[in-house]
């Protein structure tokens, strides 16, 4: 095992009932890098992310985090290493933003105990890291979808993880907030050395914000593998690969030295 390897996915396969969603996916993700998982709706991005977080058990294959099988780590140990930001989260009670974020301290709080001073300090740090200190006393149910996304990122960061998983962090955001959030996520990765794995639905975002891209396609019955390519963004996001994943014809355009995908 390579010391710089943060996450390794080994031949993971997964089916819901009889329909196979993931087929022998293998990945090696470098510590501190930003990796995006891209592909059409229903191709298994969320499923893969949950398998990495051990929220779902794959039918076959294993996931290692910093050399240890996630299945063998006690839940609280895994939660100190990995934070997970679900897609579009809702809650039934009007908790204050601060009370939501502090639940990220769960893996550090012994049974029969409540958050202590250190947990409160870490919570405030996480709130300021994501720029939502001003929202700390607002009810979670009365802030915008974009702000909720930031709250859930802060909650994950309160876990002090070395790996941050995000499921479509831009899906409920407007144009500006999509960019701001993605910039913030990459900035967190750079400044804290956190490995980021996120799913995105916009291939251009993947081109702009990731060190590596994993491109998936839908596994329609008989295909052998559903990972089309994995590697540097420019090498993965070619017109041929995009065609294979989405069935959409695109052209690569050069804008001030940056490559972007343009549907034809």
């Amino acid at each position, binding site marked *: 095992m390579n010391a710089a390897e943060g996450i390794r996915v080994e031949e993971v396969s997964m089916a819901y009932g009889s329909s196979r969603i993931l087929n022998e996916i293998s990945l090696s993700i470098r510590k501190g890098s930003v990796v995006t998982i891209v592909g059409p709706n229903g191709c298994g991005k969320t499923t893969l992310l949950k398998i990495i977080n051990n929220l779902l058990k794959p039918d076959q294959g294993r996931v290692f985090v910093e050399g240890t099988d996630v299945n063998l780590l006690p839940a609280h140990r895994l939660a100190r290493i990995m934070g997970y930001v679900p897609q579009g*989260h809702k809650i*039934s*009670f*009007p908790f204050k933003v601060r009370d939501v974020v502090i639940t990220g301290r769960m893996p550090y709080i012994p049974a029969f105990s409540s958050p202590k001073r250190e947990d409160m300090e870490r919570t405030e740090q996480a709130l300021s890291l994501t720029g939502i200190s001003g929202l700390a006393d607002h009810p979670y149910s009365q802030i915008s979808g974009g702000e909720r996304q930031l709250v859930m990122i802060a909650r994950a960061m309160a876990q002090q993880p070395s790996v941050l998983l995000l499921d479509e962090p831009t899906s409920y955001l407007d144009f500006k907030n999509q960019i701001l959030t993605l910039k913030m996520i990459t900035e967190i990765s750079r400044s804290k050395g956190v490995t980021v794995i996120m799913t995105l639905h916009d291939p251009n975002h993947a081109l702009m914000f990731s060190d590596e891209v994993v491109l998936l396609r839908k596994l329609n019955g008989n295909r052998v593998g559903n990972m089309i390519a994995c590697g540097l963004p420019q090498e993965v996001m070619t017109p041929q690969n995009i065609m294979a994943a989405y069935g959409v014809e695109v052209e690569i355009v050069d804008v001030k030295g940056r490559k972007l995908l343009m549907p034809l």
Partner: protein
Amino acid sequence: MYTGLGRWVKLQGGLRQSLHFLTKRSSLTIFALLLPLPALLISMNMGTYPVSGLELAEIIFSRLMGHDLGLPAVYDTVVFNIRLPRVLLAMLVGAALSISGATLQGIFRNPLVSPFVLGLSSGAAFGAALAIAVFPWMPLQIGAFAFSLLAVGSAYLMARRKGEVPVISLVLAGVVVSSVFGALLAIIQFAVDARSLQSIVYWNMGTLSTASWSKVDMAAPWVLVGCLILITLRWRLNVLALGEEEARSVGMNLEVYKFVFIVTATLVASAVVAVAGIIGLVGLIVPHMVRMVFGPDHRILIPLSATVGASFLVLVDDVARSAFSFEVPVGIITTLLGAPVFIYLLRVTRAGGWE
């Protein structure tokens, strides 16, 4: 030895921090926490023989110390053997139903859940009917307690699949179990004579008029230990209330905690239903009222549900025993009083901020 000592020191630190946490709260919180004291004094004073706080202290003191203070014997009997157990039982029942309701609402992430959602009350009613009409040798409280646990236990097992108990399955299983025990109860009601039927119906209304020291003794250990467990674990209800996947992703051993919370909430509520019958709406309304005023944070909600619940029921019981020339079963009053309060709070707080 050393680790034990270390743990003890840590516990002390934790206690100090909890106290610190309390002192930071507003005076309204302190008031709600201490509410049972004035409620107790007021309730002891209600009735044919008014007893002031001082007299109450004297009577209890003389009982404890064995002195004779020269008070009329009737005072002593009324206060110590009739009124005090009734007031204490009302408080235990109110605290138990409320803390149980608050806990289950958190686990189910649904503010409309009550302690009776998993079939507890139907099981208890069937057990009580069985004891009244079919097996007269069985103490009524034991029958009600055993069958309420059986009902919740079977709902839990029915909902369980591959070691997981999804809350939606639990609710559905609770509905099924309730209907089954309802049908079984109907069979008994159909078959028994009029006197037994009357007892069954009366038991179902929930009453505190049969309070006694032995009932207090039966319920108190369950309620006190259960409240202690729920209060020490209460912050974890915040984690659970955000959603199951969210709880698991921060490392919570979800099924273990769900089990502990459901078992504790059930035991606490079953213990009081067994001695007081089915007193409706307390377990639903009190947590709501507390949440609407103090917010949904279970660190505050859980202890305050217990204290406000205790005060609420003892005061309602004062009404039940003194407002009319005859005594009304307290369960009827909690429902009739609770419903408008509930609707009012729901409207002024715009449903308390739920989605």
